[in-house]
């Protein structure tokens, strides 16, 4: 890889190794090298600038969950066609840990969590300088004993109340980072983007056309299910909560690697009014931005594994800040 340290054999190797080094091997200070000084990090919970913030956030999380493990399930990646030596990695992780320290989730409960994360990182010359990171915060909250609705209220209160708390990410806050790519042109990426677009156009018959009958779907909230029913129901409930919101596809990667299933990674968003029933209670009219990421694998009979992460807590926070019902 051009301009990368020769200890890394390819981009996935780089991503897996630095993730382990930073977290499990406690190399927080290596973030000075591996993360850009001014990196924009777009979490659903808000925009963070610069590697100093990333280091402090990592430290806080490690204090709360010192045994946290990050297992890299897949790295779906592309090369920037405009900017040689620049890559985009969509890294799907399973992460688990025990809540033994004080932190964002309150006093330690001794409970364990196990969730998925999708991190889209742009990297060049050993350095990650642009990022979109979606953690299944709703899944952590549930496993630690919170209702995500209440946990969002707790966040608002502990961050100083509705006027001072951190604003969940909205495209209005966005800044341009160094990565301007949109992915690659591989057909599997196009196929996943098209499936998601059809669903968001309310053509839910696409699931029976495109998914394997034995498909496994893993969704936000650390929930999953088999076959068509789970996928259909979950996607319908999401769309139904924001039926008029604008759906946008931001980044699309498809890959065909030997010995590996055809697969794809798509980052997308929904922006608009909370104007329907579904996942988020009675409609409130709140303006909401949903940052979503979907990975998929295909087999002989269609899409056989689907993974979608969004942050329910960040959505609830936007709703609470709109209604003012924060107590």
């Amino acid at each position, binding site marked *: 890889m051009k301009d990368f340290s020769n200890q890394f054999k390819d981009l996935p190797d780089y991503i897996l190794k630095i993730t382990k080094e930073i977290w499990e091997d406690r190399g927080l200070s290596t973030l000075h090298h591996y993360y850009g000084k001014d990196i924009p990090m777009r979490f659903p919970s808000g925009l963070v600038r610069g590697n100093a913030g990333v280091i402090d956030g990592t430290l806080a999380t490690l204090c709360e969950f010192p045994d946290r493990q990050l297992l890299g399930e897949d790295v779906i990646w592309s090369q920037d066609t405009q900017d040689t030596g620049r890559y985009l990695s969509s890294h799907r992780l399973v992460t688990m840990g025990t809540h033994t320290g004080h932190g964002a989730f309150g006093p330690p409960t001794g409970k364990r969590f196990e969730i998925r994360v999708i991190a889209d990182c742009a990297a060049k010359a050993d350095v990650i300088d642009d990022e979109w990171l979606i953690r299944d915060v709703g899944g952590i909250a549930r496993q630690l004993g919170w209702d995500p609705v209440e946990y969002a209220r707790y966040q608002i209160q502990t961050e100083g109340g509705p006027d001072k708390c951190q604003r969940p990410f909205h495209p209005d806050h966005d800044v341009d980072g160094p990565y301007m790519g949109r992915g690659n042109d591989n057909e599997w990426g196009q196929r996943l983007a098209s499936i998601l677009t059809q669903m968001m156009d309310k053509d839910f018959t696409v699931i029976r056309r495109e998914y394997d*009958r*034995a498909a496994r779907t893993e969704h936000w909230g650390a929930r999953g299910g088999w076959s068509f029913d789970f996928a259909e129901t979950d996607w319908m409930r999401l769309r139904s909560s924001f039926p008029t919101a604008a759906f946008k596809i931001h980044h699309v990667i498809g890959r065909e*690697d030997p010995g590996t299933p055809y697969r794809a990674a798509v980052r997308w968003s929904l922006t608009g009014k909370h104007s329907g029933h579904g996942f988020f209670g009675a409609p409130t009219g709140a303006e909401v931005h949903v940052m979503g990421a979907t990975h998929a694998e295909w087999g002989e009979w269609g899409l056989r594994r689907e993974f979608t992460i969004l942050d329910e807590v960040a959505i609830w926070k936007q709703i609470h800040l709109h209604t003012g019902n924060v107590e």
Partner: protein
Amino acid sequence: MSRFATLPDYIQGVTFEIWEGRQIASLRESYGTDMVMRSTQALILGTEGVIKDTLAAQAAFPDREILGDDVIWCGSEAEGYLSSHRSVITGTHTGHGVFGAPTGKRVTTRCIADCFVQDDVITDEWLCYDVSSMVQQLGHSPRDWAAEQIAREGGPDQATRPFTPDQDRPGPYAGTGNGHELGDRLADILSRIMDYDVATVGRDYDRAVSFYHAGGVTGWGRPAVEAEWMQLRAAFPDARFTIHHKTGRNDPGEPDRAAIRWSLDGAHSGHGRFGAPTGAQVHTMGFTHAEFGPWGLRREWSLWDETAIWKQILLAGA
């Protein structure tokens, strides 16, 4: 000429027809009259036995869906095919049957069936349901359920014998696989684990491995999968481990993958999941499917039937 384009399509197609399509009687065409079915629960001989077994299973869970997760296969039209079919089975316990009176509970389990197919007819079979996960979801411990099963079947003298090699009958299939390197790779990993070289997990498994083991046990990462394999081996530390069949496949757009059928034969001479050692002679029919990725073995499914093991232990002590 087959109605189906490929062997996997045939397996998925007839499974759907027989179960969800209710064409139980079609087993008379798709199964050989004298077929030998080695279910972990019992040796079943002939189509009529398979038909009764299928009917009873459907009556207990009439809304059962069989979702075919994968078909890992070898062979040819001329020689016949060996298909190792891994499925996820879901259904609601609304009927009377071997699981007792209906509980209304919804059950999700797994099954691996190795079938020999010649000219669209299945003539030889090895079958394992994760019965232990089913009974646990229905509210029983695998041990107590095996004890109740023995009582329901008329006591230790009358109860159906779980499959053991001494009952076996030669069927038409004598193959041992396709000689593919991925089958060898998985067979070597299992052989090393069973030869107490548990460190092979650290060498050959992806750090992010996910697995499913008998009893509905699921987990992530090497330490968890090591612990599961050690638990099984520790209960039968002196048993003989044998690889019976290995298939490897490297298909475009599919993960590199393999299917192994194996067994452990010998005394229940160690502490573990099956309680204090009893010395009972136990046959464990095991099936392992795996997918490999760039960082090692990344998904593993291993089935054996814990209730059939308990039944052998309890029958030996009766």
